[in-house]
Every structure is written in C-alpha cells, then in structure tokens.
C-alpha cells in the first residue's frame, strides 16, 4: 500500500524536492482516511469518530489536500467545508490542519492552507472561518500571515478549559448598497496571490 498511496492520486498538484501535494480523492477512502486520522489524532486531546472525518470528506473532499513525502508517507493534511452560515451565503471553514512533527516549520501547513483557501475562493466563498486555541502560537501565526483576523474570543471553548480565538478572513465585500468596490491597487493585490 505504501508505495502506491500517492500514486493512486495521479499527477501531484505541486512537487518540491521532498514533497508532493495532492487533492483528496474519496474513491480511495480506505487508503487515505486511516492515514489522515492517524496524523490528526496525534494532536487532539479529544478524539473524532470516523463519522466526523467522513462528514467532511464525503461532502467536501475537494477542499481536502494532502502532502506526501518521497516514501509515500502522509506528512500534512487540511480538511475543510463550505456552506451557508446564517446570512453569509458561503462560509468556508477550516476544520483540521496538521503537519507531522518532523516536517513542521517548513511552510507545509501554509501551503496546504492556501490550497484549501484557493479552492474555496474558486467556489465563490464569501468568507472563511476557523478556531484555534489561544495558546497555539504556530497556528495563529500561520493564519495571521495569510490575512486572517481574530474576530472573537470564546471563553472555555475546548473541553480542556482553554479559550479559543475565532479567526475570520473576508473574501468578498458583502454586496451592500453604498459600499465602494475595491480600489484598483487592492484588486491588484488580490490578483497577485
């Protein structure tokens, strides 16, 4: 299985010296889901049942991206969803993001996050949200560098008693009358990405 795991996914979206990035494909759930679970559950104090993974992967598998090393080991994954939320027509939500410990600090999570964000933008997302523990400095730094802002603090949000920050990234200006559209330089700034 090991030497075919990444192979089943066809051409990588992106390749670096030691890594190949792929979009998740639910046809091969039996192969990838255990790898994804194993990677993510390492950093969780509370377990997610297999249904939680399936809930995301079955409905929004196209927002899930994976990074494999040259030995076909899964080193990073991002899992997201995109749906209506209150009066926001399409709100993206990054549910899980993890990189194997030995591979951290090399920009892998940033790349995965950008892939899922790009996919959401392509699908017309209005905004993207997520939560992190207030103590998770690497994650906060990562999202802030991408342009997310902390929008709320949530007291005792996690079972371990820790508080969370809700992060938000506006993708579009809500279509409200009287609002100016982007300045030209801002449009350029966005296209640049």
């Amino acid at each position: 299985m090991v030497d075919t795991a990444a192979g089943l996914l066809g051409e990588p979206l992106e390749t670096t010296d030691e890594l190949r990035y792929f979009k998740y494909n639910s046809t091969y759930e039996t192969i990838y889901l255990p790898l994804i679970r194993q990677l993510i559950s390492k950093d969780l104090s509370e377990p997610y049942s297999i249904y939680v993974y399936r809930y995301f992967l079955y409905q929004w598998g196209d927002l899930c991206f994976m990074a494999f090393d040259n030995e076909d080991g899964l080193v990073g994954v991002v899992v997201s969803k995109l749906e209506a939320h209150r009066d926001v027509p399409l709100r993206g939500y990054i549910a899980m993001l993890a990189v194997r410990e030995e591979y951290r600090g090399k920009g892998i999570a940033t790349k995965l996050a950008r892939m899922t964000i790009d996919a959401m933008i392509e699908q017309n997302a209005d905004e993207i949200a997520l939560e992190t523990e207030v103590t998770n400095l690497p994650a906060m730094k990562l999202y802030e560098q991408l342009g997310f802002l902390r929008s709320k603090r949530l007291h005792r949000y996690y079972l371990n008693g820790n508080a969370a920050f809700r992060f938000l990234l506006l993708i579009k200006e809500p279509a409200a009358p009287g609002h100016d559209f982007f300045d030209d330089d801002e449009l350029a700034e966005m296209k640049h990405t």
Partner: protein
Amino acid sequence: MSEDLDEAAVTNAISSFSIANQQQHGLSEQQPSGVQLSRHIVSRSSSSKDITSSFQQAAGWLQTGELVKDELFTLFDAVAALEIMDAKMDSGYLEPGEPLEDYYDVLQPLLPEELIGIMDSLLCLQVAWQIGYPLSQTVFASVFVENILWPEPRTLKEATFRSRGTVAPNLSLCQQILRVYCLLLIKSCDFIYRRISEETYYEEEDFFTQLYNRPLLTVFPSEQISLLAVKLLETLDTDTSIPQVQREAIISRLKVQYCFLDAVQDTLESILEAGKPLWEKLLDQLQPVQDSHKLGKSIPGTISSKLQRRIASSVPPRPVVELSFPSAIEFMKRLCKNGSLLGEITKCDDLSALVMFVSFFQAQHPQPTTYMRCQLQRLILHKFSYLEEPSLSVTGRHKIYEEVTRLVYPDTQLAIAAEADSIGPVDELTRDKQELTAAMHRFAVIVHKPLWIYVRTLTMNRSRTRRMLCHTAIEWDVVQLELEDLDADIRQYTSERPLQEQVEELWEYPLSSWAYDIKLRQLISIHQLSVELEIIHKEELSTTYWTLQWICSVRHGHLQRIALFVKARANKLNRPTRVELEAIQTTLLTLQYHTDHTIAIAALAEGLAVVSTIPRKRNPTKPLPKLYHTLTVLNLLSQPRRAPYSSDSLRHLLRTRPFQHILQPSLPASNQEKALKASFYEDLVKTARQIPHNPPRQNLPAHLKEGLALLDHVDSMIKTARKAWDQVARTDVSIARAEACETAWRADIKNIQKSTIAAGLVSSTVRKWIENGAGEGELDVQVEMGHDAGLYHVFWIVPKVKRKA
C-alpha cells in the same frame, strides 16, 4: 441576541452529546449485563421481521465511506457518533488486563499524613470544579466522595464510608475527620451548584450543570453537617493521639471547609452585612493550610477517572483535572477577596455607580469566577430590583429619571413631568403637563429593558461581555432613534427654543443625548476589551487606537454639546433654588469628569496609535527595518502586510462589521479613514518643513525631520493625556460615582498614568537615538510589544524599544 452556535465546536459537541446521552439513554445502568434479550419480540399488535440480511444487502450497494444522511444531519450529529473499540470513545473498551474499575478500600487504616494529603487533593478537585470543569472529572473522581454519595444516603448517618454496601461500625479518628471534611465539601458544592443553576443568567461555557444523578447532600441541612464539624474540632482540641503539628494542619483544613460552607450558604442579608467577615475568616484559615501542605502524603488510588464509568456510562472516562495545590490555594484566596468586595455594592445608590462598581469588579485579573458573578447578579437584582420588573414601578422610573438628570439636567418642565410620573403630581396638571408626564413615562419604559441588558452584559465572562456589547450598542442605537422622536415630540409641550450656533439651530434632544452617551461608552468599552482579550493583533493596534481616539472625539463633542445646553439653561434661571443650583452643579461636574476621562483616553490612544507604528516589521526574514523608514512610512500609508488573501479595505470591513448597523456614530469607511490619516500626515510634513529653523535638527535629512515631527506629536498627545488623567484622578469620588469601588478606581487610574509615562519614555528614547547621530540611518531597534511584554494596564499596550547591540 443569541451568540453564534459555534459551528465546529467539535469538541464541545462531544460533551453536549455525553450529557444528552446520559439523560436520555443511561444505557448500561438500565440494562444489567448478563441479561439475554430474546431475538424476536412478538406482541399481539405487531409482528417482527428479521431485516438483517436485507439490510446487509442494501448496505452492500454503498461504497465504504459513503455518507447516507438527510438534510438535517449536522456536524453535531457526526460528532455525537461514537466508535466501538476505540479507547477514547467506547466506554467499555479496556486494554488487555485492564480492570473495569479501580478498587480502593476506603476503610483501610488512615495515617494523619495520609489524611492531610487526601484533604489537599480534595481541595484541588473542589477548586477545579469551580473553575468550570464537570463534577465527573473533579469532585466525583474521589473514591471517598463517591463512597459517601452512592448508594444515595437516606440519613446523615448513612452519609459515611461503607465497605461493600454496609456502613462501617467504627471509624478511626482520622476516618471520621475525612468523612466530615467530605461532607462539608460536598455541601458547599451543593450551595454553589444551586446558586449558579438558580441564577437567571450564566453561560453554558461557564459551568457544567450535570449532576449525574448524585444529589449533593441537598436534603441534609447544612447546620447538621457544620455541627458534626464543631464536635470534631472540639475533640481534636484535646486529643493527643495525633501529633501536634499534624493535628494543627488537620484542624486548619477542617476549618477551611467549615468556613467555606459558612460563606457560601449565605442569605442575601448575610452577604450584605456579614459576608465580608465570613470571607475574611476563610482567608485567615488558608495560610496555615498552605504552609502545612508539605506534611501531607499522597496515596495513589484515591482519585480514579474510572469512577466516571459509574456515573456516565455512555462515554469513556476522561482524565481527572489536575490542578496544582498552589493554584488551588491561589484560587481560594482570590475567591475570598472577591467575596469580601461584593458587599460594597450597598454603597451604590444609582445606576451610574452600579455600572462603575460592576466594571471594576469584573476587571479583576483573573476574572471573578462564575459563582462570584452569579452572586453579583443576585445582589444587583436585590438592590436594583426595578431593572428586572415586568412593568416598571414608580421607584424604577424615579431612578431612571435621576440618571438622566445627572448627565443632562433637563428642562424644569421635564423634571416636573418626571416627578409627576414617579412621585405624583404636585398640583393639578394642565393638558400639556399631562402629555409631558406621559412622555416621560414612555421614555422610562423604552429604556428600562435595554438598561437591564446593559448591566447584565457587564456581569458575564469577559469574552462574552465584549461580544454582547456589540449587540447592546446596536440596541441603544435603536433606543436613541426612538428617543429622538420622543424628544422632538415633547417640544410642543415645553417652551424649548433652539440655541443659535452661528447659522445653525441647535435643539437639545435631552433624552436621546443621554442614550447616545451610553452607546458611545459601550463602543469605547468594546475597543478596550478587544485589546485586553488580545483580539487585536499587534499590527492592528495602531488602527484600533486610532479608532478608539476617533470614538472618544465624537463623545467629547457630544458631551460639549450637552454642556452647552445645561449652561445656557443655568444662565436663564432667575432665582434658582439651592436644590436647583446643587443639581446643576452636579451635572456640570459630571460632564466635566466624563470630558476629562474622554480626553484622557483619546490622547493616550492617539499617542499610542502613532507610537505603535514604530515596530512595524515588513519581512520577517530580513532584519528589522531601519527606524527612520518605519517612522516615515508610519501607519499612514496603506500597511504593506504579508497577507496574500486580505487587503486594507477587507480588514477594515471585518473590523467594523459589528458596527455597520449603527447609524450614529458611523465609523469612517476604509477610504475615509485613509484620507483622515493622509491629511494628518500632510500636516505633519508641513510641520517638519518648518523645523530647519530649529538648530539641532537643521542638518537632519528630511525623513528624520518628519520622524521627529511625529515624535513631537506623540509628546504633545502624551502631555495632554497626563494632564487629563491627573484631572480624572482629582475628581471627587462621588462625582465619578466610584464610592463603592474607590480603591480599584484609584489603582486603575494609577496604572494608566504609568502606561502614559511609559509611552512618553518610548518617544523620548527614540528621539534621543535620532538626535544623537542616527543621521546615517544605521539604527536597528528591537521592539517588544504585547501582553507578554508586561503591561501596567491591559487596555494600554505600550511597546518597549531597545537598540540592538
């Protein structure tokens, strides 16, 4: 007004599931193991059919992982699912050789040092529960507590240690002490639990209400339990079987629980009158407990996470919360401090004083616990019962009119009408007066509920207070609009003439003016809380302080407007009575206080808005930018942030989103804000161009001159701020409405004054660097900024600058 149903509170949902699950199913308790269920259930009215094979066949058409769900299936449902044979989800799952339960014999001989150890670990559990963890992972994890509470004791006598179901005939002295210690502890939990769950408002994130079918000795009067303790303490006084040092340690521990129970079983009277001594007595007892902790010896097995299998059988045991003993003591000491402060609320005569008191009570760090906040709410509703009245009483109306009078000192006719409405008419009312009286009545009714919601909002946990204030501000915007109509309406019954300001006619709008000021204060609080809660990133601080400054300047203008009318009216009074004079004087002093306070915040915010642009970092991989660069670029041009998916205008939009429905004040849009800052910058450059006449700066390159002009501006802001804070500090405590919280009020001002001085120091330090030959531009600065860097006041983040070696 409800808060987000936080969509992927995945972990939270697990917990809510477990609660629901236990209540609805309680599976393993109803269905003893070993009972064989018959394969087919046959009754006369129904017939059954084994669908196993057709189900299997149907399932065979599905791919593995294919999700079959209806529209209503949510993430919460997905999270609620449990997985068999996963140790973290399957409550029955055991590692090979692992027992289902730990066995600990509560009747085994107990040494004094072991008793001390157990008492201390129980205290840690008791505190962890109060912090907000469920009973199952705290107090109920103690084998002693479980042994006493289950099976449920029918008499107090039965509330003791039992071995395999039978009450132990004779307990050793140490065991007796442990039993009473547990009883006191459980009973105090009972009071706290009931207090919190009976209180109208606590938040789900603050406290777990699940009792797992274990009543906390609710039916037994606390006097009986206390009496047991008193008797034991008497015995211990003379007993010599336990060595002196240990005995004293044990006595102080018993006394802590005894005093704690005393303090939490309060009636309203006892908090108001005797609350303080009770908490102070407890505080005294804590020191010896802390000092003698080392005498204790811990025994393994007395705390077991597996006890959760008995109480919450559908989810696997979660780890017991481990709180260190020093933190537990710290917590208890804080509780005592908060508890003794609470009674001060009696000194609050009006809503302004109450808001002040609540704000300072809540600003303590760490924030007072849920229990204390519940007590606070309870006292508020006791003292200010009109806030929650279904229909506003005469007293309530009178109190609300007092608030308005204090700030805007309205027209005499309005005052008379208010009085007529609340106290009763002095003489027969003319038609106009009747109309006015009805209008005042309507006014009080309009603001009644919003006032209560505002006060209640201040009693929540900090994070929630901030979020709720975003809603209350919108509500007060609507209130203000309604009152503007009312204000315009009542002009026909009063003799109000507009003030002539140049070409403009100014009408007073007294009632809506008062409401507007409340809203502006809420907007200021929201921004200050955002800083305190670290919702504002370092790089946004400058903008946030800029906005804060902007709101304050709006409020400043508003207060001046109010003062204009009050003064005009005062001048027109002929032969004012002493009472009238005093009232006007109070209003003018109140307005002065608020004005000083607003200027103080605005000036410090503006100073910091400029100062906090100093540490801007452009590219983390490169060394920090040259100081002059940052200073010239400042924050005034669009911030070049490495944020590929965002833009200034989108960030601005997100930050101002909570306020977009507020009509007044309407926060500047992104481009307006840019224009404001640009004109500020232009002025600055102009000033800088004039500098060449100033000898020491003559030879500096232009960008450094601009930098210095900028620092000049910072300095003048800091100077203004210092003066204004001094002014605030000199305000009579009764004008500030801080009688009930004077110590905190003074300490708060002191800390802000320190922040102000620190901000001034940053500016003068940087100035020196520039003036002492930074002309070459080779000046690398190291900047620390944020809560970790140490602050005098959580609202005010002053950067620390150091020159790189």
